[in-house]
């Protein structure tokens, strides 16, 4: 950091943000840094002085707008922007259910949950499977009225007949559960089991990982002979060598379930894993140069707008992309 400045000329200095903050006296850290740096680099004195004159010359006369003006403008805006209780999320879930009904005929049987069918299922106890395909997210209501939101490329299955006694749901992929109070409710995944009493929580089994985040109530997670109890706002996941669950940690549940509200927050991961998630969310194929795939970043994207999502991730990677139907190519800039 310090070294690169030794090649700077006066224009470079005048363009350097921390140098500007020093000259403008805006930033204590910048002031401390540059005062020391100037002392250590006397050969740069002329360039520094010149750059200071330039930055100091850029002073623009501006009047602060008056309080009254700011207040009266807000009053106008306030009057035109009524606050309302947003019911959007509910409505979205409802349409998602309808969509899923259209997609798979047999879901409608379970969703209707009419008494005759329940009796039928009780006798034959078939397994009901609900899956969200690539680029599809859906909301589903279980026979006990517990709600499941399925993320793209995820599947749940359960035995309708047994659901009264044993509430057991098998999950592959990622889902958010809001569980009605009642008997034990279990989510079985290939990597471990989550057991609850009446709560809401997110289970993510992407990339061979089991990650559980608890929103309300209490959850018991069992995997690889280890057990963790999660309460509100806590999360756990498999450790690095996938041999046991990690100790519980505080989680940002709103981020973990952001995928339900239109934003997928992926956390710190290599870009290759973000690619897999993008492919799931948008039902696309991504072709990406290796150099970029390994880059670790804190990726997040809007999961209902492909172009915006690609804008977000490629902006972060300083990469470019091209969409060609269902194929997307990402290249270094």
């Amino acid at each position, binding site marked *: 950091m310090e070294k690169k400045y030794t090649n700077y000329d006066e*224009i470079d200095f005048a363009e350097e943000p921390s140098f500007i903050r020093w000259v403008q006296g805006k930033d204590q850290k910048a002031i401390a840094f540059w005062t020391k740096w100037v002392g250590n680099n006397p050969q740069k004195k002329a360039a520094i*002085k010149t750059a200071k004159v330039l930055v100091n010359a850029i002073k623009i006369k501006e009047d602060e*707008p008056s309080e009254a003006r*700011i207040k009266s403008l807000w009053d106008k805006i306030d009057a035109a922007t009524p*606050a309302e209780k947003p019911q959007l999320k509910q409505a979205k879930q409802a349409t998602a259910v309808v969509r899923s009904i259209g997609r798979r005929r047999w879901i409608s049987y379970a969703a209707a949950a009419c008494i005759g069918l329940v009796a039928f299922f009780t006798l034959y106890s078939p397994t009901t499977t609900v899956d969200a395909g690539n680029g599809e997210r859906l909301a589903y209501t279980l026979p006990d009225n517990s709600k499941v939101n399925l993320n793209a490329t995820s599947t749940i299955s359960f035995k309708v007949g047994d659901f009264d006694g044993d509430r057991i749901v098998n999950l592959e992929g990622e889902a958010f559960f809001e569980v009605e109070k009642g008997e034990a409710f279990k989510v079985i995944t290939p990597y471990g089991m989550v057991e609850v009493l009446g709560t809401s929580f997110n289970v993510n089994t992407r990339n061979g990982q089991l990650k559980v985040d608890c929103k309300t109530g209490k959850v018991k997670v069992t995997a690889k002979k280890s057990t963790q109890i999660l309460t509100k706002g806590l999360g756990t996941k498999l450790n690095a060598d996938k041999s046991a669950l990690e100790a519980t940690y505080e989680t940002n549940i709103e981020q973990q379930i952001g995928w339900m509200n239109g934003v997928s927050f992926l956390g710190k991961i290599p870009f290759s894993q973000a690619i897999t998630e993008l492919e799931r969310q948008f039902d696309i194929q991504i072709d990406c140069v290796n150099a970029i795939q390994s880059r670790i970043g804190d990726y997040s994207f809007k999961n209902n707008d492909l172009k915006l999502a690609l804008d977000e991730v490629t902006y972060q990677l300083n990469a470019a992309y091209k969409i060609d139907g269902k194929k997307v190519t990402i290249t270094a800039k």
Partner: protein
Amino acid sequence: MSDILLWKQLKDGNKSALEQIYSTYISSLLKYGRKFSRNDQVIEDCIQDLFIELWKNRAGLGMTDSIQRYLLVALRRKVIRQMDKAKKRVSDTEPTELDFEVVIAVDQKLIEVELSAERAAQVKAAMVNLSKRQKEVIYLKYVSGLDYEDIGEIMDLNYQSVRNLVSNALKKLKGTLLPLVLLVLELDKIIF
């Protein structure tokens, strides 16, 4: 609170998030808008529209990590549209280049040197010599404190164009201010 969180609250329909965004950025919006038009009413109307639309379309808003950038981009677009309309009404021959006028405040004391009236005029002239786009990048960089990416997005220019505009503006400024620069360096030798 981070911009991402505040933005999310707005998207979720939290009215107080809208108010917080307004009170945080209204001053810089009004000041920036003023550079395009001396007609305060036009700018206020644009800002009012901007916030009303923000609220109406909140559910469909994209993500942003910089609310300031988002607002400045939106305001700039609105102002341009307004000006284009107004200009068409007046005459078709008017130039369509976006106005960006700054009033330069010349400190009587630039660093250690007391400026004579003549030198102060020199500084002022140096800024006047810049093109409108150069003035705008200089304003966004040195007054609003934005980085090149943000400026590029606001002005709809790529990163390299912004860099070029800034360094050309600085070079031009340096040329005009050369006598002053030499004076500062000369004084330095005497004092130290």
